[in-house]
């Protein structure tokens, strides 16, 4: 198994977090409240944070197989997987493969599928959009971005207080994300047809103000997963776990309780 950087909090049933554009920050405000309900395990994808990027590891196919390994190696047989944004795409792909230990799935503002017409952009372009425009689209209220947490539009927050080490890590994360998802941009043309294979209870959460991928896209996404529930979170954009951590944890915990033993 690959040697990944892993952030851990709490104990109990594993709650695997598959991160988005950047790894889960130790300062992320949802971490401690969520860790009261299980063992939070948040790896950094290869090429992100302190996780190495192995030679010839470079596609979504590699990530999907890696995360199947990660789930196989978790203790017990009751795993909750939460995918955030770009990580929601990975989590959806992994869930399609029906890992034996996966019991429930939460997708928060995932990308990964194409729903609209060929001239409609479902997903704002992460790399070709101005950082200030990304910030506007990704956050309900950018003034409330938690300290030390970097979502889409992170470039616009660079200032003199940011350390060189943080910049090097952000640059490496951005390069790795691009390697995995430049084209087709942030989706797998084949995934939509296979979402029907997801066989665990699924909650699709969406920030009401998300203009990276809109709540309508989210409704369409949830509609392709058998039995999935779709819920929005007010006062949040593309990163509800960072903008409304209490509401986010509340929804996740309620869903976990409902599907306990299922």
């Amino acid at each position: 198994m690959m040697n990944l950087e892993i952030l851990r909090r709490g104990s109990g049933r594993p709650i695997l977090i598959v991160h988005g554009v950047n790894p889960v920050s130790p300062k992320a405000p949802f971490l401690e409240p969520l860790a009261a309900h299980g063992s939070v395990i948040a790896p950094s994808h290869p090429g992100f944070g302190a996780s190495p990027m192995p030679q010839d590891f470079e596609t979504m196919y590699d990530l999907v197989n890696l995360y199947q390994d990660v789930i196989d190696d978790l203790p017990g047989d009751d795993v909750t997987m939460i995918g955030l944004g770009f990580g929601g795409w990975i989590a959806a792909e992994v869930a399609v493969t029906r890992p034996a230990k996966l019991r429930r799935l939460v997708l928060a503002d995932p990308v990964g599928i194409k729903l609209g017409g060929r001239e409609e952009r479902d997903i704002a372009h992460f790399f070709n959009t101005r950082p200030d425009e990304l910030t506007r689209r990704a956050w309900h209220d950018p003034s409330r971005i938690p300290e030390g947490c970097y979502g889409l539009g992170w470039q616009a927050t660079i200032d003199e207080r940011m350390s060189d080490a943080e910049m090097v890590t952000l640059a490496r994360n951005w390069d790795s994300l691009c390697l995995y998802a430049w084209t087709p941009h942030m989706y797998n043309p084949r995934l939509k047809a296979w979402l029907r294979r997801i066989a665990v209870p699924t909650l699709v959460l969406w920030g009401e103000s998300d203009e990276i991928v809109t709540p309508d896209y989210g409704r369409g996404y949830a509609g392709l997963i058998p039995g999935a529930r779709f819920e929005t979170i007010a006062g949040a954009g593309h990163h509800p776990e960072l903008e409304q951590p209490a509401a986010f944890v509340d929804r996740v915990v309620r869903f976990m309780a409902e599907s306990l033993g299922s």
Partner: protein
Amino acid sequence: MTSMELWNHCENPYPFVPAEVLDAADSVRASLPNKYCDPKIAAGLYDEIWEEYRQCDDIGLHIVTNEHHSGINNLWAASPVITGIVASLTRKVRILSLGTLVTVRPDPVRVATEYATIDVISKGRLDIGFVKSGATEMVSGNANPIHIREREWEAIDLIEKSLTSHDGPFSWEGKFFTHPHVNVWPRPYQSPRPDFWAATSDLPTCAELGRRGFVNTLLFGGYDRTRKAYDAYKDARAAAGLPKAGEDRFSYMAFCYVGETDEEAMRIGQKIPWFLTVSIKSAPQFSKFQPGAVAPEMAPAAWRGGASKRPTDLSVASLIAQGQMFCGNPDTVAKQIKEFRQRVGGVGRIIMMTRQGLVTHAQAMKSFNLAAKEVLPQLRDLPPIDEERRAA
């Protein structure tokens, strides 16, 4: 004894977009709407430059074409079309494609086919140049900007094999490109293939060019960076036990204007840095924040705003002093080029960027004429480099 060559590099810029539009745009490449490019004006520009190329063919200036997309700096986007036309317009001079963008093109076999065709049309006058590219070109060409250097080398290898294989189809199953049935017709006119060039100042890449014997060209590198690049090339050859490279393996592109007097040249030459002052403006997501734009460990310097390799003082005098521009009367320019050759340890091929910005057709024709008739003769039969006088 060394005889230097002069090459004319014109990108066919389109400097006719209103300044207020350019000022308001966050990028003059990739995203500037093409409603600002009047095809009637563009047609006139192509005609003027074809005339310049015919004159170059008559007077002995070789010709460089290149490729950029979706911006005011360059109307050579359909680069193989342009290079093919140049092959047909001219009869004597060499033509360097520098180049079509192999990191943007999905099929190197198609690129090889275009180059072989142009080589045949020109009856063996084609040289093939490679550039890594990046920035707005990745956006315009929808090319993943990560791993482009590795992709470039695989494309070059596949193009080389396509041009030099003559015994029926071969198969290629590489990391970036696959093609099970490569069999290029026509094969190139030159044997074993047209000469290869590459534009880079990246030292490990220069070393690889040295081992492969490609021509190493630098764009506006100035004295110090150019000398270091050439040294990396030479050192790599020496380390590999290869024979010493001649000066024809080294090339340098600079802004250039040759006038009848120094005063005239300086006055007209001041229009040329438009290339840097106007035509390069690019939004942050297409430049410093583009994935792969800089190695992650260089990001702090780039993002804090200090990593630009571009000159900051763009006056003609300053550009001349830094070795980034050759400008003056014919004797002045010959002296500048000879001094540059000496300080970088030898260079055989000078590429002049002259028709740039608002330099007119007539002004370009005049400079080319003076360059060929009064500068070039002074660059023949030059003595060997005095190693003691190389730049430190």
